[in-house]
């Protein structure tokens, strides 16, 4: 008689959520870095001038390049640490969404003017 060694649960995740959580959190971190760098460039002449990586585009070139590097670096590190693990995706997702929400707020000029 053939009996399965173990029951197959079709709803069980086939792979751990670490890799996805790393991508989600790093996207939140990258977005937040962009907003903070834009704010810093707006408030400090020194930071603004140091963010000019490409003169015709001005400080926007430095804000976006630095934010992308922070995002990709964070992603690489988290992917390396979490790719084979199951992590608390709910909490990580909530943190990422909070960072994304803050990024939306901090890129809105009337909010920037409050600082």
């Amino acid at each position, binding site marked *: 008689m053939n009996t399965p060694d173990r029951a197959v649960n079709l*709803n*069980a*995740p*086939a*792979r751990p*959520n670490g*890799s*996805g*959580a790393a*991508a*989600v959190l*790093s*996207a939140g971190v*990258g*977005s937040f870095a*962009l*907003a903070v760098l*834009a704010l810093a460039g707006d408030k400090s002449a020194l930071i603004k001038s140091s963010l000019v990586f*490409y003169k*015709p*585009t*001005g400080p*926007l*070139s430095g*804000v*976006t390049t630095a*934010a*992308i590097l922070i*995002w990709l670096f964070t992603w690489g590190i988290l992917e390396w640490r979490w790719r084979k693990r199951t992590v608390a*995706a*709910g909490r*990580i*997702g909530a943190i*990422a*969404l909070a960072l*994304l929400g803050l*990024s*939306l707020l901090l*890129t*809105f*000029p*009337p909010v*920037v003017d409050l600082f």
Partner: protein
Amino acid sequence: MEITTRSLWTLIHGMGFGALYLLACSGALLELYRFTTSHTPSDSTPGPERFLKGYMIAMVVLAWAAVLTGAYVIYPWYRAAPPPGAIDLSMYPQRLLMSSPTTIGWHSLGMEWKEHIAWLAPISITMAAFVFIRYGRDLRNHRQLRAAVLCFTLVSFLAAGVAGFFGAMINKYAPVQGGHTIQLSRGGEK
């Protein structure tokens, strides 16, 4: 009928990459939601999953193309500084907008917001595409990941919408002009 190279680039950036991305976003939101929540047998075949992965990759390309052409091709023309004492500011859109209290808001609110919020779109959609490509239909079993991907895709849509709206309005009040003229057709008198 003619167009200048700068106008052509603005069209490619806004109507080509930006508008197409916005159109694709609504479809992606719906398909991502449907595909990662439904359990119908038709979704178990590899065809729809492969199509949606290709669709997401196309969106990533469109989003990055939109922000890169915006920041490195058009924005330098927008923020170009006029020579001292210049009276005609039509070739300097930023200064033209700032020269009148009725239009300054299009720069101080519109462009200042657009130039930063637009970048949230490619970051968000790249993440969403990566997660979908990695997990595919297994995303049905990762509820929290799925929720985060859908929220980021929605924010990406919102960011692209804000950028698109202000881009269109700014180009209406202070269009980017100049460059070589390209003759599209010679019109005859009727």
